[in-house]
Structures are given as structure tokens and as C-alpha cells.
């Protein structure tokens, strides 16, 4: 019995004692005092039903106000504009791709400095890095990171060449997944998948919760120490929009990094992709990366 039924019952009980003329009461006989409870409960049922009906109508009515068009500032469920609509990209959206040729990388680290300077990445953090995989003859595989100035002059003890079966460098950068997990988890829509398919961070909207950093299966995203918000490789979006190459591609002296339009069959990357077998990182995750690699071993993927 809920709280607001109590006074109803007491009032009804008193009224029923005075004169019990209801239909339900007539059939059962009205001579006993207990008869008064039957119509009282039924009336209570009816009033509750009416109350719920009215309250629900009002609540739904109030809620529906927020759905009125023009009342709200924007709606995040708006469909994407049709191709060729106005906006930032031209009518035919260019499609970009990134190819890493691990057989050409020399581990000089020029790309690392270029990226840091171009994008003002704080020391100790990086949007891109280069891993070195060293397969020893005794079966061990060791991975280390190329210092930003390259191994020369870094003072690091190098593996003895006679112990090494195979060694190669693997540059890492944003995979620009078509189905990007980092994009999906952002609670404030600060993760942007640009019309060109490049994943960006809206540093104004980002609240720095770090959820996307956790979500990226490739460990590309990080919390920028200087700005306090999420940071990531964006294939130098600002340069790409000016038809320039990303800084790391521009800085690579050996052509290990190739960037270009994959919708243009005459571009260098299209020609390379058409002739050389390539692979992506962590294909089993189904994130559909746009960054493709030449010469990936099982240890890397």
C-alpha cells in the first residue's frame, strides 16, 4: 500500500459507512460494516489508473518537446551530408593511404624529429616511433626503440652481428582504421573521422578522459603532457590539406614511408600497392587499417 492511498481509504471508509449505494455493494448486501472496503479499494484502483494515465501523458508530452526540430541546437544523429555537398572536402573525397616499407628503413630516426618539430610534440612523447626487431640465432627475438637521433652516438650497446639471424626496423604510426575503436569511445565527439578518412582530435572539445588512449589497440594515442588532452598521429592533416606530404614522409631519406592518394592509380603508393604484397597490423581485430606494411613478420603483426 503506497503512501498516498492512505487518506483515500480513510475518507472512503467513512463515506461508505454513511451510505453504501454502489453497485458492487448492492449485490453483496450492505448490512455488514466490512462491505465498505470493497468499493473503496476499487475506487482507489481507478484513481491510481487515472493518475498514472494523466501523469504519463504529461511526462511524455514534456519529453516530446525536446524532440521538436529547431528547439535543440544540434543533433548528433544527423546523417552525413550527401557526397558533393558543401563542407570542407571537395566533391570527390580523396582517399589517402600510407605504405611502410620495412625493407628500406635504416633506423636513422629522421622521421621522429621531423614529426616532433612539425607537431610540437613534447619531449618524451611521440606520435610515431620506430621499433627494431632482432632475431637471434638462438631463437630469441628482441624489440627495442630507435633513439630519436638514431643509434649512432646514442651509446647504446648494439647486438653482435654474428649472433643475429635477421634484423629490421618497423616504423609505427596511426593506422587510420576505417572502423576505429578510438573514435567510437569518445564521450564528447572530440574524435573526428574526417571526410578524407583521417582520424583527428578536436583539442577544444576533448576533456582529457583518456578513454581513447585505452581503446586504441595500437597504442598510438597518448595524453599530451603540455596540453592535457589526447594527441595522436593524424598523418599531418594540415599538410595533406595543402597537398604536401606528411612531415615524416618528407623527412625519410630512403623512401621507407610512402604517402599518397589510393584513389589515383598513377600515384606512387597506388603503383607500389598494386605490385608488392602488403599486410596490416593486427588484422584479426577487424579495425581495417589504412596503413599498410611491406615485409611484416609474424612477430610484428
Amino acid at each position: 500500500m503506497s503512501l498516498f492511498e492512505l487518506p483515500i481509504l480513510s475518507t472512503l471508509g467513512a463515506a461508505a459507512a454513511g451510505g453504501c449505494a454502489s453497485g458492487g455493494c448492492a449485490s453483496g448486501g450492505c448490512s455488514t460494516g466490512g462491505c465498505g472496503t470493497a468499493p473503496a479499494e476499487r475506487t482507489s484502483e481507478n484513481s491510481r489508473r487515472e493518475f498514472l494515465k494523466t501523469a504519463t501523458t504529461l511526462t511524455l508530452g514534456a519529453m516530446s518537446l525536446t524532440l521538436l526540430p529547431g528547439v535543440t541546437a544540434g543533433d548528433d544523429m544527423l546523417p552525413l551530408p550527401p557526397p558533393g555537398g558543401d563542407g570542407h572536402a571537395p566533391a570527390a573525397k580523396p582517399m589517402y593511404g600510407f605504405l611502410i616499407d620495412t625493407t628500406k628503413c635504416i633506423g636513422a630516426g629522421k622521421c621522429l624529429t621531423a614529426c616532433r618539430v612539425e607537431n610540437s610534440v613534447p619531449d618524451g612523447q611521440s606520435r610515431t616511433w620506430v621499433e627494431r626487431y632482432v632475431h637471434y640465432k638462438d631463437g630469441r627475438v628482441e624489440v627495442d626503440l630507435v633513439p630519436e637521433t638514431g643509434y649512432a652516438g646514442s651509446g647504446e650497446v648494439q647486438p653482435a652481428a654474428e649472433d643475429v639471424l635477421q634484423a629490421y626496423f618497423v616504423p609505427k604510426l596511426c593506422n587510420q582504421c576505417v572502423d576505429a575503436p578510438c573514435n567510437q569511445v569518445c564521450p564528447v565527439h572530440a574524435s573526428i573521422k574526417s571526410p578524407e578518412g583521417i582520424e583527428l582530435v578536436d583539442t577544444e572539445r576533448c576533456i582529457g578522459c583518456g578513454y581513447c588512449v585505452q581503446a586504441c589497440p595500437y597504442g598510438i594515442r597518448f595524453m599530451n603532457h603540455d596540453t592535457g588532452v589526447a594527441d595522436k598521429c593524424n598523418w599531418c592533416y594540415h599538410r595533406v590539406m595543402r597537398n604536401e606530404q606528411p612531415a615524416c614522409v618528407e623527412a625519410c631519406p630512403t623512401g621507407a614511408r610512402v604517402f599518397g592518394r589510393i584513389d589515383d592509380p598513377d600515384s606512387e603508393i597506388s603503383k607500389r600497392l598494386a605490385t608488392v604484397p602488403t599486410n596490416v597490423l593486427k588484422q584479426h581485430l577487424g579495425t581495417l587499417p589504412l596503413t599498410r606494411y611491406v615485409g611484416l613478420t609474424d612477430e610484428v603483426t
Partner: protein
Amino acid sequence: MVLFSIGGRMTDKAPTQGTVMTSFNDTRHLWALGAFLAAVGLVGMVVRREMIPDDFGTTGPYRASALDDIAAQPSLFQADATCHACHEAVKHERAGKSHEAVRCAHCHGLAVDHVAMARRGAEDATVALPPAAEWDGDFLTKADLYISKDRATCLSCHEAVVGMPADFKKIDVAVHLEEQGASEPLSRETCFECHGGHDTAP
């Protein structure tokens, strides 16, 4: 009169009228509830309008002007074409040589100031380019132009490291110098005693 009784007056007359289907006539509270919900909805709408940028959702589920903001970031790393626009002789000097793929910036720095001054100088003859700065061991990070013939610059790429491709020209410094009969003490510009920068053939 009861001052506060929810539903207290609703069926005062019902039994005397002989009907069970009494009506809910305490509408005052429902109006109050409705007004409260409307107020909450109104506040919610105002807050939502304030919190969501005007251009949100116009091109996708994001703030559309963020694309412009990001695209406005300046390009610092200059492509060789920028340098070759003025230094055309160097372009020809490097064409077809092994160092053609090495960027100007690797040995001369980002030269942001140098490029900016040169562009201003193209319009204003009184703007003079500053002389090249001393290389201080950092790659790329200087805004000034520098000319580094320091062997550390060369070795940052060419010192043999496990993992380099077999066809890359790498040297074990000690072995290479001994082969070439270099005499101690080595100068900082040892490499340039035999090799050029733009054309590296010995």
C-alpha cells in the same frame, strides 16, 4: 479543511452520488508536476544549446570547424622544392646522385626563419638574410639555417647498425677510417676530406 492531503478530497461526494467510477479531480498537483517537468525540460534545452557548438553535426558527428582549426596548423618541415626555388644550382648538383633523397633540412635545419626572411626579401629588397648559424648538434630543431659538415651528421645515417638493409651504404667508422688511411687527430669534417655533401662520390 485539510491543508495537505494527497487525494484527500477526491471522493468526498462520490458515494452519495452512487457511483464507483469516481474521477480524479485533484488536478492541481498534476499541473504542478507538469510545470516542474516543463521547467526541467526548458533548462535542459538551454543547457544543451549552450554546450553544443553551432556547427556541430553539420558534416558528421563532430564540430565541423575543428577541421579548419587543425588544417590551419603551419607546415614547418620544408620540402626540398621550397629550397630549390631559390637554390636551383643545388638542385642540379644533387639530381641523380645518391643523396638526392636526403632532404635539405637534414643537413641545414628547418630554416624556418631563413625561409620566412627569404620570402619577405623577395618583396622588400632591404630585408637581408642572416648568415648561417653554427650547428649545435641538434637535428632539425633550429629555426636558423645551418651548414653542418660535422661527421656526426653523416654518421647519423651511415654508421652501421644491426637492422639496416643489406644494400644501404653503411660503414664501421673505425674500419673505414683505417682502410682510408685517415690520420689522427680526426677533424670534425673528416668525411668532407673525401666526400662531398651534395655529390657524395669520393
